[in-house]
């Protein structure tokens, strides 16, 4: 059976990782496997920005992906970026095996607001589904409620649902079918 591997890179809130695992397993209908934590990604640290390069974290993750894992989701508490952008919530390889997700900006505290754990976990679910959706080849969706909609700020992230729209669900089913039959071979 196809497996989605999940791992922490550096510090990462345990409850969020465990919740992401459940979400991925139920949504994609696959077994998830927790890997031992990856080392703190110091190599990806940019002192001038006080952020971590998501591209470098992703590259490192690829080397650590177990051969039998169809997809790999790396989760970190560190704030991540790509050079062009001030931040990203996550980065995935479109149609590829790995994705990285940062918990940092999903917390109310990041914006100086009182904590809201339930809201935080809901955001984790949306972003985890979204990034792994990319790994299965889904691109951004124009349905404002679909979890594959691009969220460039919290408002957009909170507006959408933690579900795939009908079109994306269909595309996803096809992608999973092809990739799992491919994996068995």
């Amino acid at each position: 059976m196809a497996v989605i591997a999940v791992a922490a890179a550096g510090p990462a809130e345990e409850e969020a990782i465990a919740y992401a695992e459940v979400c991925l397993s139920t949504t994609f209908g696959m077994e998830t496997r927790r890997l031992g934590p990856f080392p703190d990604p110091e190599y990806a640290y940019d002192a001038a920005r006080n952020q971590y390069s998501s591209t470098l974290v992703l590259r490192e993750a690829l080397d650590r992906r177990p051969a039998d894992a169809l997809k790999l989701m790396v989760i970190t508490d560190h704030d991540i970026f790509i050079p062009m952008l001030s931040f990203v919530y996550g980065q995935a390889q479109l149609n590829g095996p790995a994705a990285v997700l940062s918990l940092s900006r999903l917390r109310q505290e990041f914006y100086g607001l009182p904590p809201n754990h339930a809201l935080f976990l809901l955001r984790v679910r949306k972003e985890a589904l979204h990034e792994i959706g990319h790994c299965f080849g889904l691109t951004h969706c124009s349905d404002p409620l679909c979890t594959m909609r691009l969220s460039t700020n919290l408002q957009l992230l909170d507006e959408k649902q933690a579900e795939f729209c009908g079109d994306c669900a269909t595309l996803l089913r096809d992608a999973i079918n092809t990739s799992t039959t491919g994996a068995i071979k």
Partner: protein
Amino acid sequence: MRKHWEILVVDDEPVMRESLAEWLAEDGYSVETAASGQEALAKAAVRDYAIYFLDLKMPGIDGIETMLEIRKRHADASVIIMTAYATVDTAITAMKEGAQEYVVKPCSPEEISLLVERIIKVKNLQRENLILRKKLSKHYSFHDIVSKNPKMVEIFDLIRDIASLRSTVLILGGSGTGKELVARAIHYSGNRADKPFVAVSCAALAETLLESELFGHEKGSFTGANDRKRGKFEMADGGTIFLDEIGDISPKLQVDLLRVLQERSFFRVGGGEEVKVDVRAIAATRVNLQEAVAAGTFRDDLFYRLNVITIQIPPLRDRREDIPLLAHSFLDRLSHELGKDVHEISESALKLLLDHEWPGNVRELENAVERALVTARTHVLTEEDFGFLQQAKTSNGWVAPDNVLLDDVQRQVIMATLRRTNGNIKEAASSLGIDRSTLYDRMKKYAIER
């Protein structure tokens, strides 16, 4: 929906370009990367991208230079200049040189996503307009003739009715009205469509040449006739022959033509064997044949032979509603042929076209669109691009070509007049408003033979 748009990300820093490319790919665009200005130009040479992200500071060709080079090929390319060295000066330079946008890295995901969305929205709209217009012009077109003018629509109906008949058709209309297009439409909508359509311009050739052109010749029938040659009537066997400028043919050829129309047979020049053909003749003229008949320069029996079915094409100034339609249809075809990314005509330019008199009719309009397109600097044809039309107007419709010599003009005018009068010196001199001895002098000076 979005997938057909391609984006090129150009940056010398690998992580920078790869990560932006991946991020844009998540949006559904197909994204390619280039590590330098040179590589970008090589890629832009083989395809056009909807958006170019160009890093300002690159070794070799920098972002602005790269943009200018890309613009030479793709006039309306959307360029976003990226820089980490934000200074007001470079921003202004980039904008002045025509960069659509200027972003300072790092910028917010929201900014980039809105920017890309806005550019693509415009591109989608332009593409939709183009498709709409193509549908529209298809709707109003009949075998390459584009019109929604009631008289022209009547002509379309008439063409359909007579297409499969064998009767001779006479097409009347000023120069550039599209007489050959009508002739082709008749041929290709009738039952001879799979047979040849052969066009001959009777004005272009001297009498003897035209004769052999039409009827062919036997080997050795005149100097230079080294081989037997098939004439246009033979080539058109089973199909249609289109005789353009029929009003210009000599009295002798008028007789030959009458014979072939009546007997459906002829003799090759220098030949004794009768050649039988099944050809439908369509003739066209811009001169008034009835007047020519009255003046005795055109045989009345040939005129009646030709004038079985007459189609009168209105001049463009009498079908002004077709001007925007035609201009856009020429623009779509010519921009493609010339590899120019121009698909719009501005309101004021259209107004200028609508106001113009178009003595050269549809062909003049086509030439005007081509000329404007060649010099156009943006993706829209503007009033300025059609400035030459106004110049022509203020100088009484006469535009002197570049580097023209007065002697050359005189020579051409005299030659053309002599051709028209079939070498009749008296007629040519009176038509030119000079006396015969002056005409002889000029002919000697310019080495013109009758």
